[in-house]
């Protein structure tokens, strides 16, 4: 089997690697670069746990050959937070308790991050469609959708963008008020 010498930029750092033809980008990230934040849930492009950004677009890294990523810019979940500081999107996940087991989370964050870049004011429906390729078995998705809505509001606020006409629909309601931490 042929080996290929490729150059790929991962989370801002350039790497030169020798990869066999049949290695996937997912295997390259996890096994060659020890970037284990990106997960293997199915190896078939169905679950989305392996989602990363390739040249700014979310793809299932299990469906991309490492050699196909030659020359590409890759961003994984490890590359989202800025020097340990959570992004507004990640903060929103904290506030909404949108993480349980955490296995789907890296892929979800990448998909959501990309959504907000291309569509700063997504509707609830647009968020759901953007996340249809990210399976989650724990949360039931509602907190994730709410977190993305909250993040959308904040990111656009930070960027000085005008607020959208509709505030976004909250999908889950609770009849008790909660004390979300704090002394």
């Amino acid at each position, binding site marked *: 089997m042929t080996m290929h010498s490729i150059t790929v930029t991962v989370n801002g750092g350039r790497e030169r690697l020798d990869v066999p033809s049949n290695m996937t980008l997912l295997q390259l990230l996890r096994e060659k670069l020890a970037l284990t934040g990106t997960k293997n849930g199915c190896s078939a492009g169905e679950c989305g746990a392996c989602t990363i950004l390739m040249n700014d677009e979310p793809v299932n890294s299990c469906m991309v050959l490492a050699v196909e990523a030659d020359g590409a810019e890759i961003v994984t979940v490890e590359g989202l937070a800025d020097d340990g500081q959570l992004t507004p999107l990640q903060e929103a996940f904290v506030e909404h308790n949108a993480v349980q087991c955490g296995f789907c989370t890296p892929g979800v964050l990448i998909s959501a991050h990309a959504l907000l870049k291309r569509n700063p004011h997504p509707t609830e429906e647009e968020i759901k469609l953007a996340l249809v390729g*990210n399976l989650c078995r724990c949360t039931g998705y509602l907190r994730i959708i709410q977190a993305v809505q909250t993040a959308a509001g904040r990111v656009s606020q930070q960027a000085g963008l005008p607020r959208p006409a509709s505030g976004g629909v909250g999908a889950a309601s609770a009849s008790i008020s909660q004390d979300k931490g704090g002394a």
Partner: protein
Amino acid sequence: MLARPGLPSFDYVRASALYEVPRLLEEHGEAARLLMGGTDLFVRMRDGFVSPQILVDVKHLPSMRDVSYDEQTGLTIGAATTMNEVARHPDVQAHYPLLAEAASSVASYQLRNRATLGGNLCNGSPAADTAPATLVLGGRIVLYRPTGEREIPADEFFLGPGATAMQAGELMTAIRFPILPPGSAGKYLKLGRNKAGDLAIAGVAVFGFPDGTASGYRFRIGLASVAPVPLRAREAEEVLAASPPGEETFALAAERAMEAASPIDDVRASAAYRKAMVRALTLRGLREIWRQLS
């Protein structure tokens, strides 16, 4: 046998010039396969359904990812254009919105960044979401061979499940769409087990425009996932050309469309349900585009 954990061994070759492709295909015969998006191919390789020794990546050949529109000649989409690229291209959205809608319905956003229009069509799957739209919009498949280029109309392209009119050594380079009749409207309706993201249990593309028929309109109906090939529902189209548009005509056309379908029972749905859904989706599609046409 269950699927492998990873891809089996093969050699990856990136074609850098068109003429290399038929040469490689001839040299390796059955052992070589063309690689576009890979979203079907890699799954089938893991499952052991195909075992190519050579994958020839054709995505980087000139024009394979170009989309161009000309007011006289129409739309040309490079075969390696991804579904998302098709769906968001301003010329596709402006002039061929049905195609954009069909491309958007495939799988997930992530997969649409890899899956290509050419790949979707050349797999010859009866369930290909872009096939009904390609059929009703009069798409033509452009195939390259060493002796030159040839074009096949989409409705001569699909021959059977997994079988197309592509010959050994040929490469699909583009899909061309003619300028559409003025005042047209189209809709792609898809039913799956999930509200989105699934393969189609039944897919119906409905396309209509004012024309010199008895009814004053011409409709085209394309069906996916309900026959050995994606196909046009011609009897339904004849009904719509002959009788005045309205609920009664649409219901009759939907019946004819249902009769044109010859689905199978499989793990996703029964033939009976698929047929009934052809009728239901055709009726909905016709009502929807009639709203736009009238």
